[in-house]
């Protein structure tokens, strides 16, 4: 732990060592890096990149003929992202490292400005992610309502067909980007160190980087609209991708940027979970949500490079005029599909697994029972993570490649439903003879189970090749994955927010509004998406701006429900604003009476999480056991006595004296 309190030197706690610190050179609050500078950096970077791109490529025949310079757009966006990161201060330390500097000792940020800064506090990053994810979600939601507006009528066009597919693509991409971080971003970052009894993340700067590049991704993907949108939907199939206008560059750069953020987030969380578990936090005591995050991290770090490779090839095809995806120049239109789905299917589980983990984590609190089949649940999530690398070709059942592999991919796809089904083994087992409290999070848990069952079972239909011939690429698929992602992940996210916001912000959410939110959300979600199964089965392909007139009734039910579903989100916003800002009610430290380690901290949580590193006694699910040990010894006991650190290994106070007072070298372990 390198964080030192320069403000309070000389506290005489035994073992605490006052150390020399170089004076902090803190300028004015407004001059230090913050989001405003990031915006400035992004604009400057974009203009610079665009100008540079025009110089090096403007005279080429393609921009001459099309009037559109993809190189300038790509460079503009890339420089813009770099400018954004420079403005927020993400590049300061990586550059200072080049001259061998140790990282500056971070001072805990205070005040609301910290939410607009590049901080090393995982709780601040978690809150930033929360706002970021909700921004993505609401933007995507508005676009979804635009889609449903167009589909109110089979032939009348509120939007032109070109605008409509731009909206469809934008909605899909924004939502997919959001969903990869929806739970891992806010709750994964916020909770993981608290759950494993750590004071910090392994790579806090990388964590902050992952958020700020995620937010840059939002701007990049929105910029597609300024360049005319992209016509490919979120899957970005080539060669349509290669043909498309400038908006496609935003899609490719945006996905690359988000992908880098995903890798950074997964990398940091994986290293943290593996190395920073508190003493006694053995693998069989790790909370199930942490298992879910760890399994997700494996997918985030290992599947995303494939997306980056695919996007990189796409950018090369569009700028350097290579021909990766252009068949008649020696490329292959299947290459994108393979690379994209090799990422894309694990991505589905990047979205699903944290939702599972969150539901399983919260359930014991509301049933007052131990989590049923903990080991099976953990093994199941690892199994899902492994198997998800071997199912990607089920997206290509009709594409004309490898027909002989179809039985195999049908088998692996159906096999993956076994570990996925463990969610139900665990949840149903935990409900058995429980004492269920129906608070808002529990309602969302039950709603999630209801929806995910439909989503999961229709997934089996899709994996079956003969049925897939009919439903592939139709609204049936669309309804299926909205049931799993929205019905599963987003329900889990809102459940998790109602559950954890009292800890995260210290303010309780209004109960009545929460329950109203749940019921409107649940009812209108089902009314929106269930008809779409039928619509798909009746032959409406995805992403069409016109459809058969006989499907209008079903589409209209869906559209009207979608608007009401949007209104349900408004209840959440009203509740959020009301309960957090306008009329906040202070929450107790442990309002749900949970055994989880994260709830044993004071509210609000100190920036160092735990006063003493806790020594963990058991897994946090010992409900209904009168004599059970507390989950952890919150650590008045020194670690040496607990037998965790040997005396020799413990750094003695004397060693921490800086040998040379004139050097700005801090002998304590630096933050990496």
């Amino acid at each position, binding site marked *: 732990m390198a964080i030192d309190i320069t403000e309070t030197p000389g506290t005489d706690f035994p073992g605490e060592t006052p150390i020399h610190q170089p004076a902090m050179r803190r300028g004015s609050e407004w001059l230090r890096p913050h989001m405003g500078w990031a915006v400035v950096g992004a604009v400057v970077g974009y203009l610079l990149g665009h100008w540079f791109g025009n110089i090096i490529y403007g005279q080429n025949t393609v921009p001459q003929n099309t009037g559109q310079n993809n190189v300038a757009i790509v460079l503009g966006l890339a420089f813009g992202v770099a400018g954004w990161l420079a403005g927020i201060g993400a590049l300061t330390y990586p550059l200072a490292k080049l001259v061998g500097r140790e990282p500056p000792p971070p001072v805990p940020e205070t005040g609301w400005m910290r939410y607009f800064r590049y901080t090393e506090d995982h709780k601040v990053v978690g809150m930033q992610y929360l706002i970021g994810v909700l921004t993505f979600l609401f933007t995507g939601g508005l676009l979804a309502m635009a889609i449903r507006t167009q589909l109110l009528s089979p032939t009348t066009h509120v939007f032109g067909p070109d605008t409509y597919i731009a909206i469809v693509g934008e909605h899909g991409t924004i939502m997919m980007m959001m969903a990869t971080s929806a739970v891992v971003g806010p709750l994964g970052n916020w909770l993981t160190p608290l759950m494993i009894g750590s004071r910090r993340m392994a790579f806090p700067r990388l964590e902050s980087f992952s958020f700020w590049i995620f937010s840059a991704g939002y701007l990049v993907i929105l910029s597609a609209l300024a360049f005319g949108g992209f016509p490919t939907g979120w899957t970005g199939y080539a060669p349509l991708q290669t043909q498309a206008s400038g908006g496609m560059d935003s899609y490719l750069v945006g996905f690359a940027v988000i992908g880098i953020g995903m890798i950074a987030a997964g990398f940091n969380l994986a290293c943290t979970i593996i190395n920073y578990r508190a003493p006694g936090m053995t693998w069989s005591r790790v909370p199930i949500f942490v298992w879910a995050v760890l399994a997700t991290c494996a997918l985030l770090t290992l599947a995303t490079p494939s997306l980056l490779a695919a996007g990189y090839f796409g950018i090369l095809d569009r700028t350097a005029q290579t021909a990766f995806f252009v068949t008649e120049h020696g490329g292959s239109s299947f290459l994108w599909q393979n690379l994209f789905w090799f990422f894309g299917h694990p991505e589905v589980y990047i979205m699903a697994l944290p939702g599972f983990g969150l539901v399983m984590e919260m359930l014991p609190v509301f049933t007052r029972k131990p989590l049923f089949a903990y080991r099976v649940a953990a093994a199941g999530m690892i199994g899902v993570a492994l198997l998800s690398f071997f199912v990607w070709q089920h997206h290509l059942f009709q594409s*004309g490649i490898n*027909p002989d592999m179809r039985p195999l991919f049908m088998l692996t796809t159906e096999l993956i439903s076994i570990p996925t089904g463990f969610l139900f083994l665990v949840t149903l087992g935990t409900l058995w003879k429980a004492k269920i409290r*129906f608070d808002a999070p529990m309602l969302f848990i039950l709603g999630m189970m209801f929806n995910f069952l439909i989503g999961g079972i229709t997934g089996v239909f899709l994996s079956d090749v003969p049925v897939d011939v009919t439903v592939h690429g139709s609204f049936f698929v669309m309804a299926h994955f909205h049931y799993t992602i929205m019905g599963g992940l987003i329900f889990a996210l809102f459940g998790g927010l109602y559950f954890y916001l009292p800890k995260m912000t210290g303010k309780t959410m209004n109960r009545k509004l929460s329950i109203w939110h749940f019921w409107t959300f649940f009812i209108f979600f089902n009314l929106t998406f269930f008809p779409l199964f039928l619509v798909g089965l009746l032959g409406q392909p995805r992403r069409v701006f016109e459809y058969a007139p006989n499907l209008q009734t079903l589409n209209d039910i869906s559209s009207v429900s979608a608007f009401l579903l949007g209104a349900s989100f408004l209840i959440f916003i009203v509740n959020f604003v009301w309960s957090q800002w306008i009329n906040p009610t202070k929450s107790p430290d442990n309002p749900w009476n949970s055994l989880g380690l994260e709830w044993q901290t004071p509210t609000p949580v100190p920036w160092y999480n735990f006063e003493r590193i806790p020594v963990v006694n058991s897994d946090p699910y010992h409900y209904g056991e009168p004599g059970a040990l507390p989950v952890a010894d919150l650590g008045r006991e020194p670690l040496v006595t607990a037998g965790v650190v040997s005396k020799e290994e413990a750094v003695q106070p004397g060693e921490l004296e800086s040998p040379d007072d004139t050097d700005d070298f801090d002998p304590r372990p630096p933050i990496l």
Partner: protein
Amino acid sequence: MSVAAEGGAVSEGSGAPQGTDEPPRKEASHGWRLFAIWLVLSAIVDPLYYIFAGPHIPPGRMSSTAGGAVFDFNILIVLAIPVMIGVWVYMAYAIIQWRASKGGPEPEGGPLAANNFKIQTSWITITTVLVLFLAGFGTYELVQPEGAGGGQGPNPIWTPTSNTVLPIQVIGQQWKFTYRYPTFGGFETTQLVVPQGVSIAFHVTSLDVIHDFWAYQLGVKADANPNQDNVAFTTPYQLGSFVVRCDELCGIWHGAMYNNGAVVTKDQFEVWAQTTEKALAANTKLLPPFAYTYTPDANGADGGYYPDNVDPYSKVETYGATQPGSG
């Protein structure tokens, strides 16, 4: 998730012996009650579905492959209904019976509540058996009716048993389908007419981006890839018209890329094909000779995505004539 119900039911069924050191009387009742509700509901709903809804499931039974898909769909639904009923009944039961406001005993913790080995193993066994059955059944249904109507690429491995297969080429292009009939001089038309009772091989290909040929009522779906022959088989049984839609996003007019096809009797088909062949003869001779794939031209009518001085085109014939801009 597939087998929640069976597993759920088993967990209840074998829930009785779980608390052996307790008086088992009351323990057992929940499990058996749930099992009974599940059994009765499933036994009612499944036949109701199969008898009343089953025959009307779209896309109907116009062809061998559509019929196969519908049969498969129905089997899956019949298996899914007990699963879903199981989970939902269990959840409803838990909500009613085990809610905190009803008071009742405090839940029991401890290792038995957290880990019931028997229930876990039976759950895993049952889900595995069901999944393996589904995979086997799906494979059979895939192999059996000539590849289930999915596109099988240039070298299909599941082919119709009949000796006479009528090839029809489907050419996807932005933004319409055209059809060539190689056995009738290779004429190209925008109408899709197929004979009843004859196995048909759709050779699907594209002249530009990826499309997807979806003959909805025929239960045929195959991607149209540039420079690739993607074969899908079906045998139409019923007369009537069917809808062809593009099922892979292909740009602005994707939603408008549809037309109607017709299944007619063999005699009518012969007449139609021969008349059309004659009517289109003038245009047919301007078309390139029939081939299973055509090399699309990456450049447009007036040249240029790739510069003109690059010359990979010369090795192969593009569809239509050589483009002036492409060297």
